[in-house]
């Protein structure tokens, strides 16, 4: 029955609307082709080498490496993170490449700074670590105007610091902000607290006293007191802080209680 309809239907003229579509149609198809012809290579969809997947161990670009492996602790721009700033020309001026490499390769055991090198459980190859160090220097290192007296050395002097001398220095240089015996003041928090001291290295304490923390408002070795601190005086201060580390036993009872109720 339907078949009869197929054959018996009269021919109809096409409607005007369809005609418009019909004519537009051809152009709609041809136009983009014309536009595209010859400029295929500049189309935004063309995959670029940058989009190509690269194995993590072939990434050498500093910004990417820093963003995936360091910015969590050292801050998006190398400062304003909980860990010490790397975006600090004074620090970069006193810390040698070998020292940086050692820190990155082995981490700082006993502190949150992890080992970055593959062979020590990290994620990066030796070459990547080198390019990271070069990138840190290139991005954040600046010529520091030579000062008198010169900036104290990054590594501590041979002789151990003197705790008693440290006490005096602390009172004159630090107590104004960090409070008497480092128990905390209006300007800055407590240092005499094993929650802090128990998770930082002596090397970090030395570095902080030298460079300060410009991002947080902690002054450097020159501005903390009336007179710039010398390398030995800094060692004395570090010795004092280290002696507080073991002295403070007060805090631990409640964490131990939580542990035993486990």
């Amino acid at each position, binding site marked *: 029955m339907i078949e009869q309809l*197929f054959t018996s239907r009269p021919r109809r003229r096409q409607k005007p609307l369809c005609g418009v579509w019909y004519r537009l149609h051809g152009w709609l198809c041809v136009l983009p082709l014309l536009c595209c012809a010859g400029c295929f290579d500049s189309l935004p969809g063309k*995959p670029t080498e940058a989009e190509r997947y690269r194995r993590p161990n072939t990434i050498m670009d500093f910004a990417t490496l820093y963003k*995936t492996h360091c910015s969590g*602790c050292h801050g998006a721009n190398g400062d304003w993170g909980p860990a010490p700033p790397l975006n600090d020309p004074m620090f970069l001026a006193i810390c040698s490449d070998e020292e940086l490499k050692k820190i990155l390769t082995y981490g700082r055991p006993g502190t949150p700074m*992890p080992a970055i090198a593959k062979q020590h459980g990290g994620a990066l190859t030796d070459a990547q670590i080198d390019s990271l160090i070069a990138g840190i220097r290139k991005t954040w290192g600046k010529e520091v105007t030579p000062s008198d007296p010169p900036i104290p050395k990054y590594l501590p002097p041979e002789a151990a610091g003197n705790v008693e001398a440290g006490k005096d220095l602390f009172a004159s240089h630090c107590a104004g902000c960090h409070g008497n015996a480092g128990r905390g003041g209006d300007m800055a928090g407590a240092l005499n607290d094993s929650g802090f001291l128990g*998770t930082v290295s002596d090397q970090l304490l030395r570095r902080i006293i030298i460079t300060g923390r410009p991002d947080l408002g902690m002054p450097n070795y020159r501005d903390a007191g009336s007179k710039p601190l010398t390398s030995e005086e800094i060692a004395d201060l570090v010795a004092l802080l280290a002696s507080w580390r073991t002295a403070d036993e007060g805090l631990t009872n409640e964490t131990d209680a939580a542990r035993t109720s486990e």
Partner: protein
Amino acid sequence: MKQAIGKLLWWFEERLELRTSLWTVMRHPIPRDLRTQVGWLYVFGSTAMTLFVLQIVTGIGLGMVYVPSAGEAYESLEHINYNVELGWMLRAIHNWSANGMVVLVVVHMTQVFLMGAYKYPRELTWMVGVVLLLLTVGMAFTGQVLRWDADSYWGLGVGVAMVGRIPWIGPELVELMLGGPSVGSATLSRFFALHVFVIPGLLFSALAVHLYLVVRKGISEPPQPDEPVDPATYEEKYEAKLKTGDPFFPDVFLRDAAFIGLTLLVVVGVSAILGPDGPGIPPDPTLMHVEPVPDWYFLPAFAVLALSPPSLETAIILIAPVIGVGIMLLLPVFSGTGQRSWRRRPVAVLVVIACFLCYGVLWELGVQEPWSPHMTAWSGEPVPPHMLKGLSPKELQGAAVLQQKTCRNCHALDGLGGQRGPDLTDVATRLTRDQLIRQVIQGGGNMPAYGKELNRFEVEALVSFLETCKPKGYAAAESSVVTDRAD
């Protein structure tokens, strides 16, 4: 000259008799009611079919360069992307047109369902349509595996999980599917064969039947609420409509052609702008921290599989799809007659809305994948500086401990970081110091216990930092207000 060509054509016509076969089909009448705007709802099926043809054309192009071997597939795709002239465009079109085809098939099906076009006498057309949907999804599924990057493992994993659960013959089927006990080079060859020969062949055959039925039974007229389908009278009424109908070609065809053209433009445009998809991370077990994620249309399935408790897995992976497909296939058997208009079929409308809502919600979950930790958040996501302002040295150190102990992989600060656990930005308004200590040391509720990994200094620093996680001027949580969580 003209005469000669005419003669030649006539020679063929005498033997092919296209005038009485193909031409009559092209001119088959379509009810007049389609002349109004509603006619635009009838264009999706033919557009999906056109994209299928485009898939075949681009697929053949890709097939000329693609190497279906586990060792070379990935490189051959990169080769197409970067070295073959316009190869990337071919991949992009194949990908986006596949996306478009999935979308259009679903839209077409929704339209047919809402307009009751599956009812008498077009039940079989619908059933074949369901088969076409499954085959289309099968193409999408196998195609994703051919990309052979880390994400393709998802498809393989789901396939194995599904097939492996079939009673009695499951394990044998898995081995048949993978070409061995585990994923290897035989696996890729098999999926290649499925994607290139088996499923397209089935799709072609089913499509032929579908088209035959469409032409034979005629295009359904737009439903009228006061004209329910009654098998006794329907044919007669419908034929009366056809007497005044328009021929498919060229009247109705132009509308399809217009939409098809538009769709092709969109596909080519999107391909030119967004480019091809992947290949992503190479399939290499030594690359850790890779969580395979499927193409977008499978994200809801991804979410369901990731979130379902193990006890329900068989039900969800095997039984639910079988039931779902069964319902779709048998739909015209249950409701093959009666009211067609969606205005009088509230349940049908609700079912459609519910399906799309479910899909959307699960999709959103799939996009965010809150259940999987973000493996590099701990070393990559900065602590928001405003949370560090004015903190004491110990609290600062606590933030460093939080990062180092990979808490950020599960917990966000200010929305940045993993979503598996609660955002910790305001945690101090919810938990007291004691509760924080307990949570960190004992874990609980999908959070590992950290007691053994933290020394007392670290716990102290960490908790003192967490205690500062509250808006400025906001009081800390008090034990009397907050219920004790560890009990």
